[in-house]
């Protein structure tokens, strides 16, 4: 397995955020959130809530990865595509997007599960198409020697 890094251009990121916002307006959605399996947050639509998206990304990625490990230990493959959590007041779905990303969708309890499953599946497909193109975009050379030097000095100022 080789490592890969994702570089999203502003246009790609805007397209993903618009897609999440559309998803959020179709039903009583609490939040829609795209992250990667290493725990990085990529894009989110938060509705009315102010979410700690960094913590959410770390926990959701850990949840999905742990579920995949459970399947493997039970003799399956690490191919979990969807986790459904039914809580008292909401339903949370976490779907894999391609190999390295996940999409989290939290809806009110009364949103039909069938709608949520279909919505997250279709959104995952559309995001995968966008991110697939984005991954081909070469990054600008902003992380240069000056940045490395300034960064070290900046750390010394903090601690």
């Amino acid at each position, binding site marked *: 397995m080789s490592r890969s890094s994702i570089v999203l251009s502003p246009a790609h990121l805007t397209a993903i955020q618009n897609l999440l916002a559309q998803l959020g307006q179709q039903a009583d959605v609490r939040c829609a959130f795209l992250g990667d399996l290493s725990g990085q947050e990529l894009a989110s639509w938060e509705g009315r809530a102010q979410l700690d998206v960094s913590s959410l990304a770390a926990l959701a990625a850990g949840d999905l990865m742990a579920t995949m490990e459970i399947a493997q230990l039970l003799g399956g493959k690490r191919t979990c595509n969807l986790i459904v959590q039914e809580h008292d007041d909401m339903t949370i779905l976490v779907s894999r997007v391609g190999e390295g990303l996940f999409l989290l969708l939290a809806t009110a309890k009364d949103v039909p599960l069938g709608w949520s499953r279909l919505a997250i599946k279709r959104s995952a497909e559309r995001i995968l198409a966008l991110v697939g193109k984005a991954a081909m975009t070469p990054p600008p050379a902003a992380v240069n020697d000056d940045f490395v030097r300034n960064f070290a000095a900046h*750390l010394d100022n903090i601690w």
Partner: protein
Amino acid sequence: MFINWALGEINLKIVYYGAALSGKTTNLQFIYARTPANLRGRLISLKTQQDRTLLFDFLQLEIGKVANLKPKFKLYTVPGQVYYAASRRLILQGTDGVVFVVDSQAGRMAENEESWYTMEQHLIELGYDLNTFPIVVQFNKRDLPHALSVQELRRHLPIEGRPCFEAAAIKGYGVFDTLKASMNSVVAAVRRAV
């Protein structure tokens, strides 16, 4: 690594790895306690009832703007107990650097060695090149009476050429030296990569 050019953010991940009770969580707790509130997020700990790390600890640090970019670091610890190998591997996924925490006590060398070799194994499985991957070593618990000499610790672990720091994380000694070295080495690796 995730780079968000629209927001000018570089998101980087550092994992504190090491044997059980070597002081990984203690490092994060001290970093959390001594970092200005505007630069850090919540310290999240998924613990067992015995207060041991179950899946991971997590802390995000926002360093502020440097040369028009905003570096953000996600710090994780792994559970140290031998039977949590699967959890350790999954936390290592996508990491940009590792801080390997060594327990300096004389009776803990076998655990340190086993932890180092399983870490190497996981990193290789995940596709990392160990020759270039940033690993910073922390010799922790230097304040304890039965701590081995640094020379002795170096003899047991294949860490030649790696940056090493002595620490007593419970008192904060060496914690930020280790963190800054790791952050700088991760940023240098990103510079080489992009």
